[in-house]
């Protein structure tokens, strides 16, 4: 306990607490409302009152959402595509950073600036041209239609974060490894990468957070079910169950659940990662 704490008197603390609670309620209430309505009978939604107290909790809404919403398939796709995107983004970022920061070549500065420039390009400006490109070379409806842009738009931030971290690692470590006869690849992957855990975690979290919830590209580049991701489940489902609102609420709650659970478990790391990623990015 420090002196500040003693300075804040009890009534003042209560006022602070109430203020913060009101903001918390504003931030959370729509989600509470969502879960509440997802457990009601569709007819009960039109009754008076802000929340409904269902006569019987309608778990069936979730069963419908899970089965008819193809939850497992979309969840599997989301998990696979995002994990691959994170892995590729990490390895490619570290390799590119090493080449630009440590290796001696004329264009290193230029190439690094070029890669960082990607941060300024609005993702949605590439939707139309990429659609035509992928269509012509037969990538639409394949996993690559999502993987390539997900990796590409994660790279600028990845390179930025890993390169600034890398420049703080003393060169002596590598020199010692070189004397022992290590090649460049072994230096990058066996010596440097393990030292960069903190920034790799940040890049992973930012990449996951950005891509997990992405749906514009998914709905533009994919037309069959095979590779569609979770956010897409909602778009598809609301069309299918357009008159049964309670089931729509259930599919939304179900789709939000995985990310929310992970966030609550790992919230310390995630908030730290976002802060580090955003402050530096």
């Amino acid at each position: 306990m420090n002196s500040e704490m003693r300075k804040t008197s009890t009534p003042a603390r209560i006022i602070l607490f109430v203020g913060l609670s009101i903001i918390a309620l504003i931030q959370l209430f729509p989600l509470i409302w969502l879960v509440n309505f997802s457990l009601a009978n569709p007819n009960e939604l039109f009754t008076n009152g802000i929340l409904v107290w269902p006569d019987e909790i309608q778990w069936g809404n979730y069963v419908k959402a899970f089965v008819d919403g193809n939850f497992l398939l979309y969840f599997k796709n989301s998990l696979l595509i995002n994990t691959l995107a994170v892995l590729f983004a990490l390895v490619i970022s570290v390799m590119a950073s090493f080449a630009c920061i440590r290796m001696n070549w004329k264009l290193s500065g230029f190439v690094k600036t070029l890669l960082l420039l990607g941060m300024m390009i609005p993702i949605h400006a590439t939707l139309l041209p990429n659609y035509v490109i992928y269509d012509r070379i037969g990538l639409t409806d394949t996993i690559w239609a999502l993987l390539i842009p997900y990796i590409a738009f994660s790279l600028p931030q990845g390179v930025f974060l890993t390169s600034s971290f890398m420049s703080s690692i003393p060169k002596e470590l590598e020199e010692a490894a070189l004397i022992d006869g290590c090649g460049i690849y072994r230096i990058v992957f066996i010596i440097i990468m393990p030292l960069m855990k903190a920034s790799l975690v940040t890049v992973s979290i930012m990449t996951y957070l950005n891509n997990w919830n992405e749906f514009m590209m998914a709905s533009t580049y994919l037309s069959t079910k095979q590779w569609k991701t979770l956010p897409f489940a909602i778009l598809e489902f609301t069309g299918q169950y357009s008159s049964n609102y309670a089931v729509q609420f259930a599919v939304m709650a179900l789709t939000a659940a995985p990310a929310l659970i992970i966030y609550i478990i790992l919230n310390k790391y995630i908030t730290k990662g976002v802060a580090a990623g955003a402050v530096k990015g």
Partner: protein
Amino acid sequence: MKKLYSNKVVILSLITPGLLTFLLAILAPICVSIYFGFTDFAGIGEVKFIGIENYKVLIRDEGFWMSLKNSLLLAVGFIVIQHPIALVTAAVLDKLQGKAEGFFRCVYFIPNVISVAIIAYLWKFIYNPNFGLFNKLLQILGLEGNVNWLGSGMAIWSVLLVLIWHGFGWGMLIYYTGIKNIDPVLYEAAAIDGADFKQAFFSITMPLMKPVIQMNVTMAIIAALKQMETVYLLTNGGPGNETQFLANFLYKQAFKSYKYGYGNAISVIFIIICLVATVVLNKIFADREERRRKA
């Protein structure tokens, strides 16, 4: 050792994956956009060059100016409403300490981990005229509660509310981290001198947070320009073009109106606007920083 670090083959092998992804997924589409921006391509059929006709039309297009106006409005909303609340909340949260501090920090960020698709549909329901949360709230307050939240005249404010609500936690977290980086000794010294929370906020927190505020404001303006997903699902730019944003506008032109060439012309202008905005904002803040350091 020098030789190993200048080995062209090794350099090439390290940089190629990154450079190739960048060229294929970011640079190539921009070039394709520039090309189609000069044509009247409809998505199918033949491609005819029409010079800068698309750009001439764009300058006179009401939807384009509406998009820019809405981005500006959103940026103002972020800066005038969201950020002051976020900054004060962060400062208060920092004073709270203990378990409650961690709890609130965790709660405020929750809307950010939920997919925009869910957020947009959820708010569409909140605004629903029949069973929506807002109209029911009005009814409880004794009003009629039949407001058409996404109707003409009202829609843009409803959209702004969602975006300001959704991004709050993100902005708060950045400010919070910035405040945590301020040396607590400063606050202790201020407390010894008898400064209250308000005085400490304006004479310690605000000045020291300047770089963080500048960065956050820059990101907010860029985010306002790039806005698409929420609007796409909530109103798709409507009614008319009242809630239009550039990204949604170009998408609608290409896929709904089959003006693929025109959509690409908008893409090109969109990229230019984002680049210029980023460069200009960074320059403004960098200059101010420099002057401050010299002074």
